[in-house]
């Protein structure tokens, strides 16, 4: 296959736009890790689960399909906090392995329920209306680069969600509590902050972000399938590791990067090999840059 430079740039653009959903998922992982120093492996499952609930509810009650994008994230928030109560809240707080195993259990539990309810087959997911038909072309020194309208919308919506998150974290009393708990849990309690309450809220916020990502990802592909869960989990983890565990800007940058690179791998090596190279990235980072881009931020005193 003869790949020209412009094809690579074009794949990179598509990938970076789509990668904003990975950035959202990575943010969710990093938020929860920042709050509890624990990985919530069930996170992508609850995100996709939320999208499924949104789809199911909208179809069942014949709501306008645009409501999926509101019901989905809310449902994902609820699922996420359920995961917190089942896999984190009542386990010994210093036993990180127990929470990890419990949340892996949560991942497969949600995944199996989805497979069971849908007989394992993919469902049509509504596309993004007029955005799906829109297509922009820009001429850039003799190259014509295309921008898919739905992917632009995906990135725009993801960025709005991120801005909302940053506002919550840095401008509200709730955000102050979240940051306080993540930096110094004992002192946070001594300031009158309830750790369990703050953690629940962190899970809800992360869940809603994941639900938005899940809906956007499904909408830009046009289908939703239980097969989305594992790749999204792994890519969320890769993004979190590359960005540096607990780093917000790291997750955003790494998300876009993973999206872009994945798309280029797809172009160069085809769909069967794509993920192999993405996973290789994970190993490269773990060996050569285990703290990711901004990992130092999570160092504690």
């Amino acid at each position, binding site marked *: 296959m003869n790949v020209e430079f412009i094809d690579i740039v074009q794949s990179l653009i598509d990938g970076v736009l789509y990668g904003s959903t990975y950035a959202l998922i990575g943010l969710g992982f990093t938020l929860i890790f920042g709050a509890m120093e624990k990985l919530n492996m069930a996170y992508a499952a609850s995100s996709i689960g939320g999208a499924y609930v949104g789809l199911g509810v909208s179809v069942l009650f014949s709501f306008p399909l645009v409501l999926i994008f509101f019901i989905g994230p809310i449902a994902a928030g609820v699922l996420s906090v359920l995961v917190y109560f089942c896999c984190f809240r009542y386990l010994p707080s210093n036993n990180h392995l127990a929470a990890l195993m419990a949340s892996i259990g949560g991942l497969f539990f949600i995944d199996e329920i989805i497979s069971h309810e849908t007989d394992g087959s993919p469902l049509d997911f509504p596309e993004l209306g007029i955005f799906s038909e829109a297509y922009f072309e820009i001429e850039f020194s003799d190259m014509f680069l295309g921008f898919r309208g739905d992917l632009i919308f995906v990135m725009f919506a993801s960025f709005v969600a991120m801005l909302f998150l940053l506002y919550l974290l840095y401008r509200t*009393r709730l955000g*102050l509590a979240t940051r306080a708990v993540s*930096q110094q849990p*004992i002192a*946070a*309690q*001594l*300031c*009158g*902050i309830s750790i369990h309450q703050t953690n629940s809220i962190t899970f809800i916020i992360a869940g809603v972000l994941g639900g938005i990502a899940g809906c956007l990802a499904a909408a830009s592909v046009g289908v939703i399938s239980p097969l989305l869960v594992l790749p999204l989990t792994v890519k969320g983890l890769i993004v979190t590791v590359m960005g540096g565990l607990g780093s917000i800007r790291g997750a955003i940058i790494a998300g876009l990067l993973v999206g872009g690179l994945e798309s280029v791998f797809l172009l160069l090596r085809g769909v069967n090999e794509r993920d192999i190279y993405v996973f290789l990235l994970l190993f490269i980072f773990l060996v050569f840059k285990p703290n990711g881009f901004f990992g130092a931020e999570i160092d504690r005193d």
Partner: protein
Amino acid sequence: MLKVDDLVTSYGLIKALRNVSLEAEKGKLTCILGPNGAGKSTLLFTIAGILKSDRGSIQFLGRQISKMKTSEIVKEGLVLVPENRLVFPHLSVRENLLAGAFSRFSRKDEVEEDVESVYQRFPILKERYLQEAGTLSGGEQQMLAVARALMARPKLLLMDEPSVGLAPKIVNTIFEIIKTLSEEGISIVLVEQNAVKASAIADHIYLLDQGEITFSGSPDEIEDNDIIKRAYLGDITES
């Protein structure tokens, strides 16, 4: 004001506190002295609700608080300044103070007023209000930890070894601050290893050793008790 009765706290099988009883009076500075590992921090953590007791009662302003959560205890007005300060390292000085006011559902301007009054008490914190707390010196962090606790408008302030790990000159400053707070009428329970300095400002002293209260009395009574004086105050006071 604070009445601890027959308190037992353990880590697994090891009893860190054995039937501890003590009282702190309103407006007074009560001091708990004891060597390393005597259970002093365990005692304060149990009172503040971070650790749960096995047995015994803790009454604060007539209410039983031994089963309450820490966040509820803080709302009652009992606030602990923890050992090693435990400031939020990546929050700014100002955000640390705002976090301290978390328990108060009061209006914003009231919290702002308190921030201002804390700045007046500790001008260095005003100078550094945008700086990350982790970059402050040990003494400044201790001031911030005290200031953060004051933001909760405590009725009783528990202080766990505020002088630990600080240079002698800074230790003097910290004890000046404690003395001033006490003179302003704030009730304080102070846990210290620096027996000489602590007993100089205390109204009442308890000695805690291996989880048990071994002495209770005024600083003068310690002066009169040769054995305890030698064990805890050393020979410095005699020279």
